[in-house]
């Protein structure tokens, strides 16, 4: 989506085609219901609108809370340049999750029902409240950018006064929300394939969300540096990648322990599609983990980017496995999304990219970032920053 190159026209055409197909799919969804726009059935009630739009959307937005925690609560200030993009990603991510929900709910006009009709025993109830509250928190966390742009000092001060409780609330809500998406599937022990069903699903979802939040931060810094012609904050990202490698290792280790304790390894001997999907998911997590431990991979923009992409895809594979493919055998049915489901999903993703670009072009999202890059580019290039040099 670079404005100065001729291939942009190509990307714009793709973008337009996606949005047009999404528009037609929306028409089908509105006038012919879920039956006319999805391949869902009584035996397979959730498809990619839940497994991708909601479950991946929320996870990919996890960079927001991870970086708020790192920068403001643990006071590791050097990561500040990537904080704003992460908050913006999270805010947009959550808004798009709500859009996805409007497509998926049978009665989108009743989206607000969980706020007034309570059932605290329901994980979905917890999810609904977390989405609502955390989107509000993200909005408030993003407001200073708007105030700064228009030079509004009074409201800026006001928001700074509540910012500490706000940040803590945001991290807590994210913790609950990321893990509760895993808890959603605790109720289907006999349906979800045992390679994925685990009593610690909430923990696995939480840790993998932190990892993908970091990976997304690297991913979008790389893209925005190209789109806005900024220097890549390589040393900063490389040190973030170091954190990412550790989080991924923790995740893999918990996963191994979990499979061992549940004696699920022998399932890998079966030649089933689940085995291969599991292997794919694991490879996409394991390979970047190993690679990111090597300094020459972390300090090479292309390789670093490739690793971040692998982590993101490994994460998506995991969520899709838990949310769709892992449930097929237990539900006694097959599910392949209809084109209209894919079209809506792609449109949501494409709009996310476009809106991010628009906002980043208009508001001071990367300003702190480029200023520092200009301050001492040479030294920065030479040396990876130490992630834990603070105090």
């Amino acid at each position: 989506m670079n404005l100065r190159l001729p291939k942009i026209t190509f990307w714009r055409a793709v973008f337009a085609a996606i949005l047009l197909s999404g528009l037609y799919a929306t028409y089908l969804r509105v006038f012919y219901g879920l039956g006319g726009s999805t391949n869902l059935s009584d035996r397979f009630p959730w498809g990619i609108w839940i497994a991708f739009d909601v479950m991946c959307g929320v996870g990919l937005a996890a960079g927001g809370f991870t970086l708020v925690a790192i920068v403001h609560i643990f006071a590791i200030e050097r990561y500040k340049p990537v904080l704003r993009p992460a908050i913006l990603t999270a805010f947009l991510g959550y808004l798009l999750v709500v859009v996805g929900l409007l497509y998926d709910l049978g009665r989108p006009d009743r989206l607000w029902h969980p706020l007034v009709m309570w059932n605290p025993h329901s994980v979905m109830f917890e999810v609904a409240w977390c989405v609502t509250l955390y989107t509000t928190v993200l909005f408030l966390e993003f407001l200073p950018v708007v105030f700064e742009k228009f030079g509004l000092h009074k409201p800026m001060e006001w928001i700074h006064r509540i910012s500490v409780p706000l940040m803590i609330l945001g991290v807590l809500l994210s913790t609950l929300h990321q893990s509760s998406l895993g808890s959603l599937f605790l109720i289907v022990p006999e349906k979800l394939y045992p390679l994925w069903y685990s009593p610690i699903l909430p923990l696995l979802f939480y840790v993998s969300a932190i990892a993908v939040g970091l990976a997304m931060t690297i991913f979008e810094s790389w893209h925005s540096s190209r789109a806005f012609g900024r220097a890549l904050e390589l040393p900063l990202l490389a040190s973030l990648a170091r954190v990412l490698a550790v989080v991924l290792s923790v995740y893999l280790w918990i996963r191994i322990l979990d499979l061992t304790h549940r004696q699920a390894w022998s399932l890998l001997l079966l030649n089933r599609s689940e085995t291969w999907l599991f292997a794919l998911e694991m490879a996409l997590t394991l390979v970047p983990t190993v690679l990111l431990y090597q300094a020459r991979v972390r300090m090479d923009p292309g390789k670093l980017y490739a690793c971040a992409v692998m982590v993101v895809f490994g994460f998506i594979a995991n969520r899709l496995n838990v949310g769709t493919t892992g449930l097929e055998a237990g539900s006694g049915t097959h599910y392949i999304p209809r084109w209209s489901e894919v079209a809506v999903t792609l449109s949501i993703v494409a709009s996310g990219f476009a809106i991010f670009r628009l906002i980043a072009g208009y508001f001071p999202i990367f300003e702190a970032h480029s200023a520092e890059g200009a301050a001492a580019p040479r030294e920065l290039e030479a040396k990876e920053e130490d992630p834990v040099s603070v105090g």
Partner: protein
Amino acid sequence: MPRAILYDSTLCIGCKACEGACAERWGLPYDDKIAAEERISAHKLTAIETHGDRFSRRLCMNCVQPACASVCPVGALQKTTLGPVVYDAEKCMGCRYCMQACPFQVPSYEWSSRLPRMRKCDMCYARQSQGKLTACAEACPTGATKNGDRDELIAEAARRIAQKPGQYYNRIYGLKEVGGTSVLYLSAVPFEQIGLRTHVPQEPLPETTWRVLELLPDVVSTGSVLLGGIWWITNRREEVARQEGAPKHAGRPPGASKNTPRLEGAPSQPAREEGKHP
């Protein structure tokens, strides 16, 4: 004294009178084509299945501790003390979590409707609360479907097995499955041979999520104290550093971020000005 239904597959002759009565009760269309469908759906809340020369019946199990009611975010599904699990379409937002959670794949959805509802058998709650039998039990000509008090029906089922041990598979389905159901089955053959799910857990499913959900207050309170504490420690350190006039991050590589601590990622003034120079 919760109510229940006892379905004795050995007595069922597959006449489908229960299907017709159920359709009439709900005001749903019923003809030969629908009668031939062997699957419950949004327009057919109970179905007779053929398994060789045996019959089986599908309907909502009206579980003692229903997964569907525990997962419904808006409380549209409720377990009544009478036994039936009832549904309030006015509350339902259509998230379909009940369908995902039900271990028996019972709830059906009005997929092609623009204002869809979830549909399932509610063990004729309206009829039973007036002291009447469920429509299907009333219609059954052979007594294969019997409606009554759950404990009495369990006793009766045990009696039938004891009296004719050769005719029955020696178990009652629904006694322990997912912590007990209000629909009980008797069969001549192991239950999986008449299409029942035998690998469902023996514990009530709502436990699986409640184990995590009940930790919520602990996570929130511990988390706030912990995060607040960490913030206080790290910021206190910065305060001290500022008071002593020492550089905040001594020993950092040259050119690293020198932002003064400010909230919300606002870029610091000096850094901005530096950026203006070529």
